[in-house]
């Protein structure tokens, strides 16, 4: 994945493409996410993500038709609000908060620099940490999100790579947050589903950042 377009501005279309790519990734990986959520969770993460991001794309389509998507901030704020009001579970409020915070940071501008989007992501991940109380190493989505924003300086592709490595790095961890924590030692040896979907979300970002 090349970063040739990482300097290009982010407008509402590009933000929508990110959400569309995320929806595709969640749909394609629904079964895998649910399988990961079975041994250490309750087997609903794939459905939650697919349902949530599909709701996001249709909410964005409607808002676009009505001319409400005046900038990338509006897109991501609506995406976050939609996740909160359609997903449920732990992941709905957490991902919803993440995207809403990104959107809030981007504000009302019609387009923003990639660095502003990066700033937004940092704020978003802070929001996730504040809401969920998880730290790196607790075997949650934070284990993918935090390394990703830490790598943002080197571009979105690097962030996506870091998220992937972070997700894979959850395998040996013992969970301390979320449903997997109930298993204690038995949570070891399984990859965290939320960290995996976080890597998909960052992957979709890198794809859109690099391809346009």
């Amino acid at each position, binding site marked *: 994945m090349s970063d040739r377009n990482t300097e290009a501005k982010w407008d509402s279309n590009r933000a929508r493409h990110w959400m569309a790519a995320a929806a595709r990734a969640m749909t394609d990986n629904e079964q895998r996410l*649910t*399988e990961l959520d*079975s*041994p*250490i*969770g*309750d*087997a*609903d993460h*794939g*459905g*939650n993500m697919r*349902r949530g991001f599909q709701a996001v794309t249709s909410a964005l389509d409607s808002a676009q038709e009505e001319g409400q998507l005046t900038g990338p901030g509006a897109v991501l704020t609506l995406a976050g609000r939609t996740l*909160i*009001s*359609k*997903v*449920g*579970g*732990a*992941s*709905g*409020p*957490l991902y919803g908060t993440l995207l809403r915070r990104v959107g809030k940071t981007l504000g009302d501008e019609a387009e923003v620099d990639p660095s502003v989007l990066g700033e937004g992501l940092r704020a978003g991940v802070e929001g996730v940490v504040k*809401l*969920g109380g998880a730290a790196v190493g607790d075997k949650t989505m934070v284990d993918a999100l935090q390394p990703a924003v830490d790598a943002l300086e080197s571009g979105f592709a690097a962030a996506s790579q870091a998220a992937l490595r972070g997700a894979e790095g959850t395998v040996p961890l013992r*969970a*301390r*947050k*979320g*449903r997997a*924590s*109930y*298993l*204690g030692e*038995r949570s070891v040896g399984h990859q965290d589903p939320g960290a995996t979907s976080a890597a998909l979300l960052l992957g979709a970002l890198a794809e859109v950042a690099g391809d346009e």
Partner: protein
Amino acid sequence: MKQLINVPETVVADALRGMAAAHPELSVDVENRVITRADAPVAGKVALVSGGGSGHEPLHGGFVGPGMLDAACPGEVFTSPVPDQMTRAAAAVDSGAGVLFVVKNYTGDVLNFDMAAELAEDEGVQVARVLVEDDVAVTDSTFTAGRRGTGGTLFVEKIAGAAAQEGAPLDRVAAIARQVSESCRSFGVALSPCTTPAKGSPTFELPAGELELGIGIHGEPGRERRGMMTSGEIADATVDALLADRMPTAPVLALVNGMGATPLLELYGFNAEVQRALSERGVVVARTLVGNYVTSLDMAGCSLTLCQADEETLRLWDAPVRTPGLRWGA
């Protein structure tokens, strides 16, 4: 496992349509997934709202009615509902006396109910919250998301519901709910896993001749796997786990709960062993409820909840209740 469904996507909506047809005394908003008493809001009464992932029926929708909940919000299977459902429910049932949210302690439920509480308060509804966290199988609470809310939820909803029905104000109803919540302990055992419609296959493997101790109600595996045990041995292990955490004094309420696929015949037999195990350890039970109340789809197994009562909570437990899932008194 085969399922009596159309497609996984419509399972919750289909069930709500079926509930609406069977229970004219409830008002079921299928589109927005809110079940309320048809006569809500009840003037002057504090309203109780609960909810959680579907798959635990009759909890919570089956506990809506006079003497218990005013509204329930069913999420997708094993997925907590969304704040919109809860705020909508709160607005529908609030008579001005305020709303108590009964929340089972899961990250998703807590986050969504907290968001809903903020939104509802913005809209002028007075909201209190009680957290149910009764599952002693979750140890080292500091390194986990904390104890899960399971069978104790029934006691909280019933007893706080009775207090609200009698006209207690919000702070009193919330205080009683918290007291009951703190007085409940649960422990569950699975003989077979369950199958969610979306996954279509068991959530974990449990070979013949083995069982899981300390399971939750979401098809998650337990803390320990053991060779198959008799009903008496399971009762001993379960009672020991509960009493090690808290030794209740009289009066004690007991819920001998089936996880969904365990026949009532077996559940009553298990109750005989539970009563034996309790009385051998000096615990006298004042009331026992046996049945499938807080289930986990088609899981075979059982859980035991003990609730330390006092004269007042015992009286509220005995007070009339009229819901699809729990009914007694005038």
